[in-house]
C-alpha cells in the first residue's frame, strides 16, 4: 500500500465517532491544563495519563495527539498573556508575545500564534506522513550497535543542548540512567539496586518522575521565592482578529518557522529549543521593522510559534521510527506506548499500521479542531488564568496527586513523588535541567539492551560497537559534541571570551 492509501486508512480510523470524540476531549483537556502557568505538553500528558487507561490503544493515542496540540496551544496562550512559558519551545513566543499583549495587541498575538501553529502543524504532519515511512524503512538496516551509538549520541547532545551547562546536563542524564536501572533486569531477571524493596522491583515509574520533577519541584520552588508580587494578566483587547498588516507580516515567518522547525525536530537530538531560537534570530534579521523586536514584533511570535509546532511534528519521526525520544514530550509518549506493550521502531509501522496511521491522521484532525475551537474560545481559557495564584498552584498539586495516586493507589508511589519532588526542587534551585533525567530514565534501559545485544552477537568483543559505518560515525559525532565546545572555548579565550547565550530552562 502506498503512503496515501495508508493515510486514508488512518483517516478512516480517526474519523470513527468515538475517536473523533477522544480527539475533541483531548484537545479540550489539553488546552485547559496546558494553559495553567508552568505546565507544558509533557506534564499535561503525564497528568492526563490515568484518563486513557480504560481506552483502546488507538483511541488513547488519538486522545494524546489532541492533548499534545491542545497543550501547546494552551502554552502559547499563557506565554503571551502571562509571560510564563511552560516549556522551552515557547520562550521566544513569550518574549515578543507578552510585549504585544502589554501594548493591547494580545488578541492579534494569540491569533498569529494559533494560525501559525495550525499552518506549521499541518505542513509538519504532512512532512511526517511521508518522511516517517521512509525513515522506518531505513531504520531496518540499523543493527544493535547502530542503535546503541545513536542513543549515546542522543545522550551527549541532550546534555549539551538542554540547559545552561553541559556538565549539569550530563549529570541530569546520568541521574536518569541511574534511576532507569533500578528494578528487575529484563534479560537476566535479577533485581538491581532494589535493596530488598518489593516496591522497587517494577522500577521507578516514568510518570511519577515527570510529574514530581516538573510539577511538584516547581511548586516548592515557586513557593520558596516568597509572597506574590502581582504582575497581573494582560486583558484581551483590540479585537480577536489580525489586521491586514498583521497577516502580511505573519505568513512568511510561519513558513520560515516551519522550514526550520521540522528538519531540526527530525534530528536525533533536535528538540524544540534550537529551531525556535533560530527562527527568532532569522525573523529579527529579515524584518523590515527590526526596531520593534523586544517591544512586540508580530514576526517574533509568528516565526518561533510555527517553528515550535513544526518541530513537535518532526520529533515524532525519530520517536515513531527509531523509538528515540528527543524531548520530554516524546519521552512521555514513548512511555505511553510502552504502557500499551508497544515498542516504537520500524516494526511499529508493519505490526501496528492501523494505530500509527490513525495517530498521524488524528494529528491533522487535532490541529484543525484546535483552530476551530480555540480561536473563538480564547476568552474562556483566559478566564482560567484569573484564578488567584495560591488556589491555582494548590489546584495543580491536586491534579498531580490524581496523576500519581491514580496510577495504582500505592503508598510507595506517594513517597516516590515526595522524594522526587524534593530532588526537582534542588535541581531547580541549582539550575539543573530536568528533561535529560527523563530521557535518560526512558532511554537508558533501551540503550543497555542494545549494548548487550550487540556484545552478545560479537561474543563480548567491544570492537563490534564501532564495526559498522553508521555506528562509527554516530559515536564519532558524539565524541565531537563532548570535546569540541571546551576546545573552542579554549581557543576563543584568547580574544576576550565571547558571552555565552544564557538559555534558561523552564519546565516543560
Amino acid at each position, binding site marked *: 500500500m502506498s503512503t496515501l492509501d495508508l493515510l486514508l486508512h488512518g483517516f478512516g480510523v480517526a474519523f470513527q465517532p468515538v475517536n473523533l470524540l477522544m480527539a475533541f476531549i483531548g484537545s479540550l483537556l489539553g488546552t485547559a491544563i496546558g494553559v495553567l502557568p508552568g505546565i507544558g505538553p509533557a506534564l499535561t500528558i503525564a497528568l492526563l495519563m*490515568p484518563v486513557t487507561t480504560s481506552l483502546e490503544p488507538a483511541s488513547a493515542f488519538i486522545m494524546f495527539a489532541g492533548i499534545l496540540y491542545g497543550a501547546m496551544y494552551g502554552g502559547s496562550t499563557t506565554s503571551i498573556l502571562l509571560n510564563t512559558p511552560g516549556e522551552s519551545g515557547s520562550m521566544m513566543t513569550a518574549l515578543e508575545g507578552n510585549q504585544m499583549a502589554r501594548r493591547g495587541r494580545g488578541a492579534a498575538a494569540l491569533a498569529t500564534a494559533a494560525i501559525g501553529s495550525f499552518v506549521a502543524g499541518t505542513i509538519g504532519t504532512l512532512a511526517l506522513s511521508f518522511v516517517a515511512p521512509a525513515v522506518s524503512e531505513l531504520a531496518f538496516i540499523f543493527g544493535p550497535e547502530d542503535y546503541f551509538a545513536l542513543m549515546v549520541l542522543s545522550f551527549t547532545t541532550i546534555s549539551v543542548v538542554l540547559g545552561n551547562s553541559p556538565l549539569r546536563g550530563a549529570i541530569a542524564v546520568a541521574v536518569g540512567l541511574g534511576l532507569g536501572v533500578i528494578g528487575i533486569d529484563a534479560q537476566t531477571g535479577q533485581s538491581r539496586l532494589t535493596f530488598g524493596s518489593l516496591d522497587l522491583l517494577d522500577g521507578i515509574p516514568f510518570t511519577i518522575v515527570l510529574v514530581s520533577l516538573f510539577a511538584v519541584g516547581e511548586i516548592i520552588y515557586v513557593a520558596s521565592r516568597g509572597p506574590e508580587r502581582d504582575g497581573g494578566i494582560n486583558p484581551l483587547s483590540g479585537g480577536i482578529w489580525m489586521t491586514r498588516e498583521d497577516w502580511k507580516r505573519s505568513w512568511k515567518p510561519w513558513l520560515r518557522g516551519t522550514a526550520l522547525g521540522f528538519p531540526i525536530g527530525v534530528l536525533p537530538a533536535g528538540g524544540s529549543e534550537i529551531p525556535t531560537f533560530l527562527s527568532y534570530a532569522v525573523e529579527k534579521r529579515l524584518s523590515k521593522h527590526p526596531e520593534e523586536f523586544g517591544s512586540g514584533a508580530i514576526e517574533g511570535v509568528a516565526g518561533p510559534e510555527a517553528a515550535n509546532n513544526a518541530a513537535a511534528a518532526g520529533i515524532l519521526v525519530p520517536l515513531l521510527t527509531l523509538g528515540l525520544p528527543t524531548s520530554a514530550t516524546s519521552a512521555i509518549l514513548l512511555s505511553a506506548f510502552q504502557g500499551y506493550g508497544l515498542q516504537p521502531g520500524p516494526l511499529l509501522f508493519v505490526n501496528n499500521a492501523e494505530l500509527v496511521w490513525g495517530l498521524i491522521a488524528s494529528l491533522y484532525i487535532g490541529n484543525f479542531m484546535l483552530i476551530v475551537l480555540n480561536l473563538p474560545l480564547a476568552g474562556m481559557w483566559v478566564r482560567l488564568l484569573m484564578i488567584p*495564584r495560591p488556589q491555582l498552584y494548590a489546584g495543580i498539586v491536586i491534579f498531580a496527586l490524581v496523576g500519581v495516586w*491514580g496510577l495504582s493507589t500505592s503508598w510507595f508511589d506517594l513517597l516516590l513523588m515526595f522524594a522526587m519532588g524534593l530532588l526537582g526542587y534542588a535541581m531547580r534551585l541549582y539550575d539543573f535541567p530536568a528533561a535529560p533525567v527523563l530521557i535518560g530514565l526512558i532511554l537508558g534501559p533501551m540503550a543497555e539492551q542494545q549494548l548487550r545485544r550487540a556484545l552478545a552477537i560479537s561474543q*563480548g568483543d567491544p570492537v563490534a560497537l564501532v564495526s559498522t559505518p553508521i555506528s562509527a560515525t554516530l559515536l564519532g559525532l558524539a565524541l565531537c559534541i563532548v570535546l569540541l565546545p571546551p576546545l573552542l572555548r579554549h581557543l576563543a579565550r584568547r580574544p576576550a571570551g565571547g558571552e555565552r547565550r544564557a538559555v*534558561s530552562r523552564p519546565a516543560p
Partner: protein
Amino acid sequence: MNDRVAPRPWWVPAGVIGFGAVMLYGATQLGQSDAHSGVGPGLFVTIIGIALILLGTALGVQVARGVAFTSTEGADAYDEVDDEDRTHRGPLLLAIASLAAPLVLMQAAGFPLTAAVVFAGIARAFGSRRPVVDILTGAVLGGVAWFFFNWLGVNLGPFLPWLTER
C-alpha cells in the same frame, strides 16, 4: 544574577558522588559479565556509577572555583523570581510539609479529605489567608476529581475509608 543560591553548595556534588557510590555498591552484588552475552547485569550499573562519580567530581571542581549556578529566569509566573532570589523558609517548609501530608493521610482519610488538607497547605504557602475557604475548596475539588476520574475509570481508592472500613 549576582546573588547566587549559596556561595559554595558542596552538598550538590557530594550528592551526585553519593548516588554514584550507591550505584557502584549495587553493582558489586551483580555479575559484571556472563558467559552468554559477555555482559552481565552489573556492567551498565558500574559504568553509570563511575560516570556519576566523575561528573560529581567535575562539579565539585566547579563549586570550588566558585562557578555561578545561574538562576533560571523566565519560567516563573508573574516574573516574581527575577527581582528577588532569596529563599523564604516559611513558605518553603509549609509547601514541603503539605506535600508530605498524603503520605500520612491518603490511606487513612481517602482522596477528598487529603486533597482538602494539601490544597489548604499549598494555598497558604503561596500566601492565602483564608484557611476555611481553602479547606472547603480543596475538599470540593478533591471530591469532584474523585467522582470525575472514577467515572473515567481511574481508581482513586475508597472515597472515605474510615466510613467504609469500620
